[in-house]
């Protein structure tokens, strides 16, 4: 996927820290996104997604006050009123609490980026996210556990 593939696409950056938004916005511009929107927390992001903006991908920080990354993904996936509740989400994290990323995966994310990350790292995640369904929970689960009763959302249906 080269630069021109992203020209018609819109990315949404969700981060409470202005400096991280500046960094992500700069990287997304260089990757070639035609339009980049910003939100400073999960609530603002949900409002933008609810406002019939067409958003192709969301890059979201995990740790934010009030509505954080996990709550955001949970509310997004459950919503039946949002323009596109299945929009691909990439989570940005700098932490090692094991439960966090597994919880995010359970809720339905398409990839995650650990700080520090480069433009190439971000672009690889985006290409992969646009190209495949959400991370399969079964692949992350320890062996021998029974997941037959867990609902795995199928984001293949998106387009």
């Amino acid at each position, binding site marked *: 996927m080269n630069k021109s593939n992203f020209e018609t696409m819109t990315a949404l950056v969700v981060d409470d820290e202005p400096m991280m938004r500046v960094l992500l*916005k700069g990287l997304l511009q260089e990757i070639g996104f035609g339009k980049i929107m910003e939100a400073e927390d999960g609530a603002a992001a949900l409002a933008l997604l609810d406002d019939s903006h067409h958003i192709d991908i969301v890059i979201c920080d995990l740790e934010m006050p009030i509505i954080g990354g996990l709550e955001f993904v949970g509310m997004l996936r459950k919503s039946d009123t949002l323009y596109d509740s299945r929009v691909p989400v990439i989570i940005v994290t700098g932490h090692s609490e*094991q439960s966090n990323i597994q919880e995010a995966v359970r809720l339905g994310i398409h990839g995650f980026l*650990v*700080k520090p990350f480069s*433009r*190439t790292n971000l672009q690889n995640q985006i290409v992969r996210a646009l190209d495949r369904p959400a991370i399969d929970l079964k692949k992350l689960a320890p062996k021998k556990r029974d997941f037959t009763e867990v609902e795995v959302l199928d984001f293949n249906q998106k387009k």
Partner: protein
Amino acid sequence: MSTDPKSTMADVFEGRVLVVEDEEVNRLVARGIMMPLGIDPEFATNGAEAIEKTDAGDYDLILMDVQMPGMSGVEAAIQIRERERAEGRNRIPIAALTANATEGDRVRCMEAGMDGFMAKPLMRSVLIDTFTRWLGAQGTTSEQTGAVPPAQAGSILDGESLVALKASMGGGVASLRLVLESFQESLVRLPADISNAGQSGDVEAMVRAAHSLKSNSAVAGALDLSALCARLETKMRAGDTAMASSLILEIEKEVGRVKLALTTELDSIPK
């Protein structure tokens, strides 16, 4: 963090490397050493993340910290090997990162299917040996691979981290300037937030401001400031307020030094 002046351009490698390491500052240092060697690493912070990253991506080499909270590096290596076998994937070399490994640790790592050891903290010469062994393709010039020349080590703003930041932005000077200007702004805002929180006794606000300043400093290569903020954040989260005021003083002093270094850095970036 000094750089050996004798080997500037010769050691350049190609390949996708995953580094599994829970400490952000260690990840920054690893990136700072690797980018001049032509390697733009991806990171995971624990075993579960490493397994997901390995399932989703094609790596040529994994450097795995052995002691991590949650799933250990040994357990992660066992699961990665199981998945490779089950799915018929290529076997990715895994090198263990350990501080003071005992003979027992070595045996456990080997039994888990790991291929080698590297001592922590990471050293450039050891990384070169590791990359030579598992990545090959050595001896190309930096123009061909996009590797960046090694940095002049600086004490306030870590030279290697800054060079890595520049390279990681893909050479976009305008974006780099915006990021550093935003950092400059946060060097005014966040220490004031910390100091106000200290005066009003608002622990939660202090944790938040310290956390933000820690992350921002790490991005810009102000590693000492980042480490001081991490200490404050950890102590405040644990409810340990005894040392807070002296830590805050240290942070304020370091902020002053970083501001000066940052002004110099910004002056050197074309507008």
